[in-house]
């Protein structure tokens, strides 16, 4: 049986490879293969996979990439992910990507999609608009139209149409992926000492790169290995980390939170991996199934509109309850409009429910972890010593 150390070592090498060697090798293995890049927080990967292409999550350059050219494209008060993404592309690291999808997460990413069209005219660039109205006849109709347009773009890239059967087969594979991802999150929530968040994070990041079939195998291996290995159970505070759904925190930040005495029992790092809360129907019209799942059976985040103000932020309260967390760490990227504009609303909801929280900001290349360790550590102390539970 493959051990967790070996599995995570593979995930880490994928994570550190800013040249996307896996995608290049996958593409070179068979003539005509295409790679479709996408940015956070959600795209229907089933359509990409159904077209025979490899969906490749592009989550910025992290703390290993020096941004030189990227800074010329954005003013100083803009987050770092668009700069490092431009840097990745201008330095040729993304030249294996045939099409790039920009979901409607914020104005900056919308802007980036326009820049992509100008800078890389040979790459098919598609701004993927997600519905903010959740009525079937309004948002549903709009979203089906958007999905069909994307299906057309992918068919054009492939050179022939994408059949319903192909999409249904992909939905089945991604349903399995989501079940396995939920199983890993469930395992971590129950026994966080057996599945450290720095490992779970790398495992989920691998899902942004690997073909879904391979990621499913890796998830199964990790579940089996982590359950069979004994690890020390420490007296740590259980926390939910929220706000990091787009620009990713440096791996050291997660390690610092854990080292400071917290078990992360839920997070929103890679929402695309578990956006749909249950299976997407595998029969009937697959595009309609994807659309209805988005409207009625998907997660919540600040980039998704909540029409009922009385329900605003309750998803976080629910996450705290479900995961048995004792507090919330709001870790949000500097200059992230969706996350930082939602933060006061979340704080208000958490206060109303008596859930302790702290908040800090980071950038994907943040290097100084001492203040974060101090803040997270003293938060853990306050939970452990003074909470009523």
């Amino acid at each position: 049986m493959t051990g967790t150390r070996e599995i995570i070592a593979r995930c880490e090498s994928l994570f550190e490879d800013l040249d996307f060697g896996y995608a290049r090798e996958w593409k070179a293995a068979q003539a005509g293969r295409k790679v479709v890049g996408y940015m956070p927080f959600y795209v229907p990967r089933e359509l990409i996979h159904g077209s025979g292409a490899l969906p490749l999550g592009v989550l910025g350059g992290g703390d290993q990439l020096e941004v030189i050219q990227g800074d010329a494209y954005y003013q100083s008060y803009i987050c770092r992910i668009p700069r490092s993404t431009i840097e990745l592309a201008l330095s040729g690291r993304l030249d294996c990507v045939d099409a790039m999808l920009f979901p409607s997460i914020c104005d900056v990413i919308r802007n980036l999609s326009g820049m992509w069209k100008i800078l890389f005219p040979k790459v098919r660039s598609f701004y993927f608009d997600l519905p903010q109205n959740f009525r079937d006849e309004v948002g549903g109709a709009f979203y089906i139209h958007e999905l069909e347009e994307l299906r057309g773009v992918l068919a054009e890239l492939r050179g022939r149409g994408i059949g319903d059967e192909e999409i249904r087969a992909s939905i089945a594979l991604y349903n399995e992926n989501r079940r396995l991802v939920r199983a890993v999150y469930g395992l971590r929530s129950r026994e966080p000492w057996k599945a450290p968040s720095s490992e779970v994070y790398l495992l989920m990041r691998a899902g942004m790169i690997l073909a879904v079939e391979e990621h499913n195998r890796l998830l199964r291996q990790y579940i089996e290995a982590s359950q069979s290995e004994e690890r020390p159970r420490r007296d740590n505070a259980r926390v939910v980390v929220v706000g990091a759904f787009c620009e990713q925190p440096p791996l050291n930040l997660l390690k610092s939170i854990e080292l400071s005495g917290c078990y992360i029992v839920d997070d929103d790092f890679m929402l695309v991996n578990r956006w749909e809360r249950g299976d997407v129907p595998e029969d009937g019209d697959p595009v309609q199934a994807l659309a209805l799942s988005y409207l009625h059976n998907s997660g919540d985040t600040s980039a998704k509109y909540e029409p009922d103000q009385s329900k605003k932020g309750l998803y976080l309260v629910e996450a705290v309850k479900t995961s048995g967390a004792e507090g919330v760490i709001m870790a949000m990227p500097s200059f992230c409009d969706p996350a930082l504009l939602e933060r006061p609303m979340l704080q208000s909801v958490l206060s109303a429910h008596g859930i302790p929280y702290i908040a800090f900001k980071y950038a994907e290349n943040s290097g100084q972890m001492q203040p974060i360790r101090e803040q997270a550590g003293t938060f853990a102390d306050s939970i452990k010593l003074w909470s009523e539970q």
Partner: protein
Amino acid sequence: MTVTAGIDVGTGAVKAVLFEVEGENARWLARRVERVRQRDPYRLAEEAYDALLEAAGLRRGDIAYVATTGEGEALSFHTGHFYSMTTHGKGAIFLDPETRAALDVGALHGRAIRIDARGKVLAYKMTSQCASGSGQFLENIARYLGIAQDEIGVLSKAGDSPEKVSGICAVLAETDVINMVSRGISASNILKGIHSAMADRLIRLLRSIGSIDGAVLMTGGLALDDGIGACMEEGMAKEKVRTPIRHHPDSIYAGAIGAALWGAFRHDKLARQGALANAA
């Protein structure tokens, strides 16, 4: 009866204690302090822990909770970790129940911690990153002057005309000291000048944490340095701060004591919840 260990991994020294706790009553079983002196602090901590167990006639399995503080979170055998402000506050209350603020003066940082009677942290301030005003800086200067550490306090108290030393920057302070040596200033007055500058910073730190309803206990590696203690008292009188500054012979253990006591508190709380940790 709960037996717990507290291990404080500091920059200059590793402090370890064993406690027996029953309800509100806590009793020392063993204690040990080991200066780091460029050795691996984690190895030292483990050796100190094993030496404590041997001294108390106990085995690792007898310890209900191994609590770390300072830089001890990376110790592989700890059950839980508590931050320095949390542990120094609790340790200070144990050593002197009238304490309502701990002033932790360590090798690298100074920390002022305002606490309530339970040891709960109410306010906290720490010196900035600069090493000036830290124990490490003082130790370096003493070494340059060829003075043993246990002579620092006595010599400083003998100073009658201290020279002003930069309280902001370690590099400038070192330059000040080099100038003083070349001008023939006595070691006593140089050391008193350094202590005065450190005391000024620490008093500012204390003032920044708000009104203290009780005594201040000095903790950390410099707590027993008579020289800094005397300068603190002088400085407080000059600034008309009426809060009494106190010392305790076991002040250096305050962090480790606090860790051990909070470890016992957590152990009992987790036992009631049926959720005991088993890392150690």
